[in-house]
Structures are given as structure tokens and as C-alpha cells.
């Protein structure tokens, strides 16, 4: 079908869906109401397992199987990107442009911020059960921080300090650690990913049982996965360049 027919067909469909959406929204509980039954149950379960961050408790304690599934989706899509962006047989390495110069203030800012961002990322990962944060957020912060090296320095510097096989192994290790912690739950109390080890005191660093360990595993996996992902794209755009027209 050509473009005009496609757009008209979409317009009719969008009108129908829009009408259904408005009818549904009018019948929903009003914005900001106090009727949240799942919230009542989730908060009670979070406090029972001494977890100050209720969102982390839902992610890693009450619905931890879903989080394992999401982690595997992330792993699979990074593998897919790595497979799709393999250098083709006839692509030549053209290397980064030698004319790229970085301004001195950018370089200074990058080198000062790099260790700061890495430490902040590690802090967000380890304190995921007491403050907002956790493995997913901290992992992305660490991965973004590593690429400050590319912004402030050169692509060659990034290549030297970012060995790809190490991060590929780190990603697999993170995913496996999550599953192994779950199996410990099976072995000790017959439920996969059950929060069985000591709960500690509410709000302390060593509280909430297995949640800090799961946060660490997810943080490792997300950080390594995103570093590998961006590395594949950087290789394609900078190292391999493109074939001529």
C-alpha cells in the first residue's frame, strides 16, 4: 500500500483508539485518589523484610522473577547488537580522525568528573535498598561515567582502558550471580529467589536480606552490558567508518 493509503488507514485507527482511550480514562479512579490496594500490600511486605526502599523491595523481593526476566532481555539484546554489528568481511579499519582535538577545559572537567561519577554510581548500586537507586540506575551511571574518558580524551584512550572481553565476562557473571542467588533460595527454603538470609535492622546498610546482593549483580550486569553495547556502536561509527558511495 502506498504512503497516502497508509496514513489514512492510521488516521481512522487512531480516531477509534483515541475514542476508546477517552471512554476508559473517564471511568478510571480519579487522578491522585487514595484507592491503591497493591500499595497497601506491597508496603506491608517491604516493612516485613526490613527494606526501606519499597520500590527496591518490589523489584528484588516480591517480583524478583520478573526482574530476572528483564535482566535476561537486556543480556539478549546486547548479544543481538554484538551479533548485528560484527565487522563485515569487506569493511576496512579507517581509524579515528587525527584532526579531532579536545578543548582543555573539557579535558580537565572530564578527568575530574570521571572518578566522581564512578564512585557515585557504585554508591547508588550499593545503597539501593535504603535510598532511591539500585542496580539498574547505578549500572547506567557507571556505564555513562566510563565514556567520559571518550569525551575528555581520545577514542584510543577509551579503547586501552576498556577491555571488551572483560566487560562481556562481567555481564554474563552478573546474570549468573542473580540466578545463583535465586537457587540459594531454593536450596535453603524451597522457593526460587526467596529472601532467606538475615534481614538486619530497618534502614541500615546490612538490611533487607538478599536485596543488596541482587542489586550488586544487576548493577554489574547492566553496567557491563551498556558498555559493550556502546562499544559496538562506537566501533562501527568511528573505527570502521563507512564504505564509500
Amino acid at each position, binding site marked *: 500500500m502506498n*504512503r497516502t493509503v*497508509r*496514513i489514512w488507514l*492510521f488516521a481512522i485507527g*487512531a480516531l477509534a*483508539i*483515541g475514542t476508546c*482511550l*477517552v471512554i476508559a*480514562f*473517564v471511568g*478510571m479512579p*480519579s*487522578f*491522585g*485518589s*487514595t484507592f*491503591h490496594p*497493591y*500499595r*497497601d500490600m*506491597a*508496603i*506491608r511486605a*517491604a*516493612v516485613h523484610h526490613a527494606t*526501606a*526502599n*519499597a*520500590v527496591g*523491595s*518490589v*523489584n528484588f523481593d516480591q*517480583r524478583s522473577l520478573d526482574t530476572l526476566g*528483564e535482566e535476561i*532481555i*537486556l543480556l539478549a*539484546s*546486547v548479544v*543481538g*547488537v554484538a551479533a*548485528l*554489528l560484527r565487522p563485515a568481511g569487506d569493511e576496512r579499519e579507517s581509524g579515528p580522525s587525527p584532526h579531532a582535538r579536545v578543548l582543555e577545559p573539557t579535558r580537565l572537567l572530564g578527568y575530574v568528573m570521571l572518578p566522581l561519577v564512578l564512585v557515585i554510581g557504585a554508591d547508588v548500586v550499593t545503597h539501593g535498598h*535504603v*535510598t*532511591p537507586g*539500585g542496580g*539498574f*540506575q547505578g*549500572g547506567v551511571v557507571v556505564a555513562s561515567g566510563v565514556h567520559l574518558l571518550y569525551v575528555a580524551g581520545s577514542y584510543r584512550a577509551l579503547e586501552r582502558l576498556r577491555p571488551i572481553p572483560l566487560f562481556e565476562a562481567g555481564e554474563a557473571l552478573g546474570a549468573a550471580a542473580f540466578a545463583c542467588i535465586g537457587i540459594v533460595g531454593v536450596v535453603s527454603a524451597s522457593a526460587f529467589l526467596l529472601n532467606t538470609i538475615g534481614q538486619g535492622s*530497618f*534502614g541500615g546498610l546490612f538490611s533487607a536480606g538478599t536485596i543488596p546482593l541482587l542489586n550488586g549483580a544487576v548493577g554489574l550486569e*547492566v553496567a557491563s*552490558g*551498556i558498555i559493550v*553495547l556502546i562499544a*559496538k*556502536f562506537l566501533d*562501527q561509527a568511528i573505527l570502521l567508518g563507512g*564504505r564509500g558511495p
Partner: protein
Amino acid sequence: MSIYGYLVAGALLLMGSAGIVASRNLVHSVVCLAVAQAGTYVLLLSVGYQRHSPAPVFGSTSAPTKRVVDPVVQAMCLTDIVVSATITSLLLALAIQIAKRHRTINPDELGALRG
């Protein structure tokens, strides 16, 4: 006007879909998909919101209480955001491969199967 939040979510979804349908560039349509996904996050968080209630994180100054915003929808949104970023990257890698093979990323020119 208490359904404004839900209407914004529905509008984002439909705008993103319109962008995908009317797009002339595969990379543009992938970014419009990200806008449509953002519509679902806005809807989920609007459903979980409660007026005059703090975030569902307790600390030394806030004792555990049930008068907080819903943590279940927040947990759903936060993992979804990170995972959908990697899925977006997968779609962009597909776009790169299509550009290499077919020399064009205009969806209208990619329709026919090559025989």
C-alpha cells in the same frame, strides 16, 4: 480536569505511532517509538499517584506508613526504562545493517522484496 494526566499519556502514545507511520527515515521512526513508550510510563505513574503523599522510600526521618505513592507501578517503570533503551539500540543496529545492505533507510523504498 483530573484526567489530564491520562490524556497526556494517550496523546504521547498516538503521537509516537503517528510519527512511526508517517516517517521517511528508519532512525526517526525508532525515536518516535521511544516517545510512544514514554506514554506508557506516564500512564502507569499517573495511576499510582496519590495527592499530598511522599515517595515510597522510608528513612530515618520518615517512619513506614501506608500514605505513600504506589511502589508497584514505579518498580514496573524503572526496569522497563533501562531495558527498552537496549531494545532501541537493537533496532538502531538493525537500521545500520539495512543501510549497509540496501543503501537507503527510507521505509517506502525498502518495501519490495528483491528477487
